[in-house]
């Protein structure tokens, strides 16, 4: 136990050193106006845009974990377009929005950058920090309007090319399941029975915790809700005021969270997202609610047991829906000096070449363009197979309309996050958590004011 914790400590200390070194090294790259670093062989002359000239573009992102994979993807692009070099320049995820905004406002933004879906990205577009892509050749054909909607205005003007969707599910330790004679659950009741059985055998059933708060909301509650409310159609009923946010289905969703309380690790309130991954990969917990983006992180830990993933099961008698969420798109900085080169890159994102390079270097992120894709990673393929088996898929509950609360009001995200944690800790009943959500939204979201529970 002690040696293990020492090892963890050592690894983390090492990681801190590496990260700080990496951060030091990455800083000069954030400014496109500064002269290129001495290690760069490709230097773009600032005064020319002729395509024959060699050009270096920067690509801002929140995917610090994928720097290696992106280097490979961008090399694939460079091989096809030898004149254009794209440099991946990621920022720590929680700081990305603030950092990007500062860069754009001070004129030091990257040429290309990851754009968040819905309100956050739309806000940047409206303020003129993201270029319109309505004239980008091929975009309308290669990406469906529904896929592009999270990065388009209400009138359908797109400003970013969607590259990735993520899925959600429950990772499980196949060895522990086999040892305890448990089959993959197909209903919520079976899942709870499996958890009980594991607990009785002395195994922590679920690895999730609430220290970092966001994960209990985004990977647990948000992946339970589509099953309870009936996917997209169910969600639209709330957004249009046909259902209230404290109706029986929302209460049931919070009840599912309450069901989990006895099966979480000891001290789950101080267990962070990375602790949860560790608990699972060390075989100390049998299951982990998480997103498909975590595949490579788990593979990196090389668990000494067989593992896979299953879809979050619906309660008996309800249809299965998968939380398949739009995640990332790439947009262009209108202040970039190399617009043509940037557009060449954006068009490349719509090709099979990109899809294959992306899906197989960053397993767990699923390409969104219609170009054909082959997915090699078995777990990623399993995640994707949920979609065809389920009745439907949907994005996370609050993302489309319930995020950009006016100043001084709370978004559905914030209230649901607080509600889920309070329910888990036993500070609130599921009914109270749902009532809080309705009350908070009724303050600023018009359809919630006029809703009626039937």
């Amino acid at each position, binding site marked *: 136990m002690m040696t293990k914790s020492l090892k963890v400590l050592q690894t983390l200390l090492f990681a801190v050193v590496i990260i700080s070194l990496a951060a030091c090294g990455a800083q000069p790259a954030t400014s496109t106006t500064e002269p290129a670093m001495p290690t760069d062989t490709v230097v773009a002359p600032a005064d020319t845009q002729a395509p024959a000239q060699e050009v270096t573009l920067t690509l801002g992102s929140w995917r610090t974990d994928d720097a290696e994979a992106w280097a490979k993807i961008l090399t694939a692009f460079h091989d096809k377009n030898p004149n254009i070099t794209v440099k991946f320049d990621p920022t720590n995820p*929680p700081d*990305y929005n603030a950092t990007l*905004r500062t860069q754009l*406002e001070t004129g030091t933004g990257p040429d290309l950058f990851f754009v968040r879906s819905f309100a956050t990205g739309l806000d940047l577009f409206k303020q003129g920090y993201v270029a319109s892509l309505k004239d980008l050749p091929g975009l309308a054909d290669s990406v469906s309007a529904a896929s592009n909607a999270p990065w388009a205005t209400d009138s359908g003007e797109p400003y970013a090319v969607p590259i990735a969707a993520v899925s959600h599910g429950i990772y499980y330790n196949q060895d522990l399941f086999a040892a305890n004679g448990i089959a993959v659950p197909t209903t919520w009741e079976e899942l709870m029975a499996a958890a009980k059985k594991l607990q009785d055998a002395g195994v922590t059933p679920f690895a999730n915790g609430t*220290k970092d708060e966001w994960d209990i909301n985004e990977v647990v509650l948000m992946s339970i809700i589509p099953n309870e409310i009936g996917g997209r159609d169910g969600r639209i009923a709330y957004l249009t005021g046909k259902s209230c946010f404290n109706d029986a289905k929302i209460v049931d969703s919070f009840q599912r969270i309450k069901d989990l309380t006895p099966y979480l690790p000891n001290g789950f309130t101080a267990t962070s997202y990375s602790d949860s991954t560790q608990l699972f990969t060390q075989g100390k917990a049998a299951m982990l609610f998480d997103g498909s983006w975590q595949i490579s992180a788990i593979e990196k830990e090389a668990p000494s047991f067989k593992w896979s993933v299953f879809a979050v099961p619906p309660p008996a008698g309800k249809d299965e829906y998968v939380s398949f969420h739009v995640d990332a798109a790439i947009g262009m900085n209108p202040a970039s000096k190399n617009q043509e080169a940037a557009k060449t890159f954006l068009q490349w994102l719509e090709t099979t070449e990109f899809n294959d390079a992306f899906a197989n270097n960053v397993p767990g992120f699923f390409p969104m363009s219609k170009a054909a894709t082959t997915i090699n990673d078995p777990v990623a393929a399993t995640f994707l197979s949920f979609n065809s088996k389920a009745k439907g898929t949907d994005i996370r509950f609050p993302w489309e309309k319930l995020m950009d609360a006016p100043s001084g009001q709370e978004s559905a*995200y914030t209230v649901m996050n607080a509600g889920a944690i309070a329910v888990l800790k036993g500070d609130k009943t599921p009914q109270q958590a749902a009532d809080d959500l309705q009350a908070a939204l009724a303050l600023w979201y018009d359809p919630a004011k006029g809703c009626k529970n039937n």
Partner: protein
Amino acid sequence: MTQALIKTKEKKPISLKNIYSPSLRQEAWKNGKWFLFLLPALLVYIIFMAAPLFDSLRLSLYTGEGFSPTTFVGLGNYIELFTNPLWVERFSGAVLHTCIFFGIHMLVQNSLGLFFAVLLSSKFKGRDFFRTIIFTPATLSVLVSGFLWTLILNPQWGAVNIILEKVGLKAWALPWLGEENLALIVISLTSAWQWVGMPTVMFLAGLVGISEELIEAAHIDGASAWTTFWRIQFPLLMPVVGIIAILTFVDNFNAFDVIYAMAGARGDPGYSADLLATLFYRTGIAGEHPVGIPNMGMGAAIATMTFTILMTGVLLWLFLSRRQSADL
């Protein structure tokens, strides 16, 4: 250097004596040359301190998205801060938590500092070693020490809970950073641990400065060590106590890094460790997760309120310490 001085001395009739002579000083005062000497410091102060401060005050009267809000709203931000139930809850919470944070530092960090200083002022073997040890944490980066403490306090593999379980106190092995009534206290204590070297050094300097004769005289009069401390040393340390108190006050009301490292930008769990600085950061710079659209005007209003609290505290201290020195 000295040679050069001597040379100029030989060439010109100005001696060091002349520089300090009243007539020269009067002359410099009269033709305004004194201003030239102030200018460098004044410029640095204006550009890096005064101008941003006033710009922040100005910003608090505006609203709009982004880093240069453009719509003038007068006192609108302040009115919203004190009337909107959500802002009232967050702001009063932040003020309360900052006061608790400050209180624990005063109680633990500064009392321990005084205690260590008294121990370290007497002569014993290994004194220098302990002096170094007590100051060492203060040389660490807060982010590093905060991160290490989150590992030590981790409920799954942290040293604290492993030790507690090993000695049979399993019931005491709590999720230290996950409980709303514990997190802030635990974080304050780790911060006090890190900075205890500062008051120790200052008290030590104060104690060393107290004349041995006074203590010897008290000893001859038959005063115990306890009485000597409370009747002689402590009263003479009062100016140091005052300075340490005001420094702790200013530091704590600006504290951000330790909370950010150990409880995130929201002061998790459930805003229970949210300080004025983290509230300001979320509002004015980062925006609320996961949308991240900052409200600079409101952020500036919160910063102005923090400034007002600090200003009131410092002025009060100046007033009290002036009166105290007048009494003496």
